């Protein structure tokens, strides 16, 4: 039996290939600048990963993942900003020791909400819990009342709009539309130089692989199968004795937490956080990363994110005025022609050829790749 609670054999190969690609191939072939770009892209991969569980498996399309990305990112950024706003660094201000944007907005002491973010432990907990609890509240309110599908998508979109206006409007506390810029050190360790970027990159890849394992675990658990079942026949699941709402809330929360981790890593890697990630446009773009990778494919989410972002960067470098056509076209093509994205193309065209190549050399029993045979039930 090649299977366990995390992956079957072919998935293991896939994860290893991805790990080698991220840990060995990219760092060897890219300079630090490009590697840091990859690190930035990978922060979106966390969001895409969450969307695979929430949207791909659970069928819940959230157009507000930017909210959670933003909450995670802002929690991290608040900690970093406080560290960067030491009395020494800010002596030019009328109130030294508070973040610069507060000073510009006539705030003379650190707001209560900010106080606990002096502690890294609290910050890390907040990165997980704030978005998690927020998702729990939204999810409970919506799913217990059976709001689903398009309605859920539109309401999450409105939540993203509300949060953006709030962040922009409360600029004394949030940095407004500028966001929190000029983040410098983490516990005294400068996050800006190249060697720090490399360390952060590997740390992030490690976190991403950990999240992939969590996603794999969820997928291979009965909960993963219930999510699929729910997407198809919600009533049947309900009348098999499950509280459908609870499962949806779980999927939504885990997606939110993944997004928040991505946001926190973004703040670390890029050195700032701004409301432009919270809004509707980035949230929808994050959905498209998932769609391009294949909404049912955990690894596809990572590849999809990388592919779209590489395309975006290189298109906008060579044809700055045309990349929207490319991006728009990509959306349409994927939805129309490849609803299962890269993973679908792989599964439909590439995998069968590889299988044929292998099986022509050494025949395998039917269905050995099928994860559902895990129980060792007699095959036909």
């Amino acid at each position, binding site marked *: 039996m090649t299977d366990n609670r995390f992956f079957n054999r072919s998935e293991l190969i896939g994860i290893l290939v991805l790990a080698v690609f991220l840990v060995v191939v990219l760092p060897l072939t890219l300079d630090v600048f490009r590697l840091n770009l990859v690190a930035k892209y990978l922060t979106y991969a966390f969001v895409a990963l969450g969307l695979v569980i929430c949207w791909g498996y659970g069928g819940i399309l959230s157009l507000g993942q930017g909210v959670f990305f933003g909450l995670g990112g802002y929690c991290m950024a608040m900690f970093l900003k406080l560290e960067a706003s030491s009395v020494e660094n800010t002596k030019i201000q009328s109130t030294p020791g508070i973040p610069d944007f507060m000073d510009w907005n006539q705030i003379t002491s650190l707001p209560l909400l900010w106080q606990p973010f002096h502690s890294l432990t609290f910050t890390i907990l907040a990165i997980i819990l704030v978005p998690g609890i927020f998702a729990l509240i939204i999810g409970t309110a919506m799913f217990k009342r059976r709001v689903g599908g398009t309605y859920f998508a539109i309401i999450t979109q409105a939540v993203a709009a509300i949060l953006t206006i709030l962040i922009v409007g409360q600029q004394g506390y949030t940095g407004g539309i500028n966001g929190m810029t000029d983040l410098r050190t983490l516990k005294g360790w400068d996050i800006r130089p190249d060697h720090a970027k490399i360390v952060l990159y590997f740390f992030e890849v490690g976190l991403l692989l950990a999240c992939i394992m969590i996603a794999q*675990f*969820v997928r291979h*658990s*009965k*909960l993963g*199968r*219930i999510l*699929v*079942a729910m997407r*198809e*026949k919600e*009533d*049947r*699941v*309900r*009348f*098999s*004795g*499950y*509280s*459908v709402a*609870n*499962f949806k809330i*779980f999927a939504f929360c885990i997606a939110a937490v993944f997004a928040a981790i991505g946001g926190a890593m973004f703040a670390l890697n890029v050195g700032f956080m701004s409301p432009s990630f919270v809004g509707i446009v980035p949230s929808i773009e994050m959905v498209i990363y998932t769609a391009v990778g294949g909404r049912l494919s955990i690894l596809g989410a990572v590849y999809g994110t990388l592919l779209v972002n590489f395309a975006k960067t290189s298109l906008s470098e060579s044809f700055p005025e045309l990349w929207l056509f490319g991006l728009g076209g990509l959306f349409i093509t994927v939805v129309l022609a490849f609803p299962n994205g890269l993973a679908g193309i792989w599964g439909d065209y590439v995998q069968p050829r590889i299988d044929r190549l292998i099986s022509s050399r050494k025949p395998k029993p039917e*269905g050995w790749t*099928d994860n*559902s*045979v*895990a*129980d*060792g*039930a*007699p*095959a*036909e």
Partner: protein
Amino acid sequence: MLVGQQPREFLLAVEALTVSFDGFKAVNDLSFYVDENEIRVIIGPNGAGKTTVLDLICGKTRATSGSIQFRGKELTRMKENEIVKTGVGRKFQNPSIYDDLTVFENLEISYPRGRSVFGALTFTRDAAVRDRVHEVAEMIFLQDRLNMSADLLSHGQKQWLEIGMLLIQDPDLLMLDEPVAGMSVSERAKTAELLNRIIKNRSVLVIEHDMKFVEDIAHKVTVLHQGQILSEGTMDKVKNDPKVIEVYLGH
């Protein structure tokens, strides 16, 4: 508390049940009682409210007024999944199975363990689960199709699979909505055999149009018409009830 005083008498007691959709009363002041181990068939013309009654019992539709007591518990205020946990299982009219999962996984999901979020995460496919799934699969004639994706099954096999999914829950009250509709003659015979086997030790509420089938299995028949009971009793009794004949053959 009228109903509370006769708890042990009936498995299911439906009293003064009414539901209206924008003024239209699909079920109107309906009362009936089902005994332990009784097989009750509900018949009636289209639009009589048969499916709505099942919807009301399993919580899919909320009653406007009235009560449904199951083993003394009031179902009208419970959530669907709680109703299932008290021992009510329901099969839908169209086969309602998970096409993207295998037969094994379909049955496994209905296995009554690990129904909470945490439980589902930590659920292990142990020997007890496997044995039970194989046992049920054999009962529903699908033991050699366990690893097949469910969407490849024939219509009849899908119906059986759904019945199997209920069996694995081991409910005290089994509600079946047209279990033999759309089946071939041989499948129909096999289904009757299946039903006769599984109705032992539990009560069954069946909606069915096939009179031959009804005669085969029913202990008692309830005839619904326009959301109300037209007639109730043994098959012989209702077959000769002039009101029933009027409804079925009249006009």
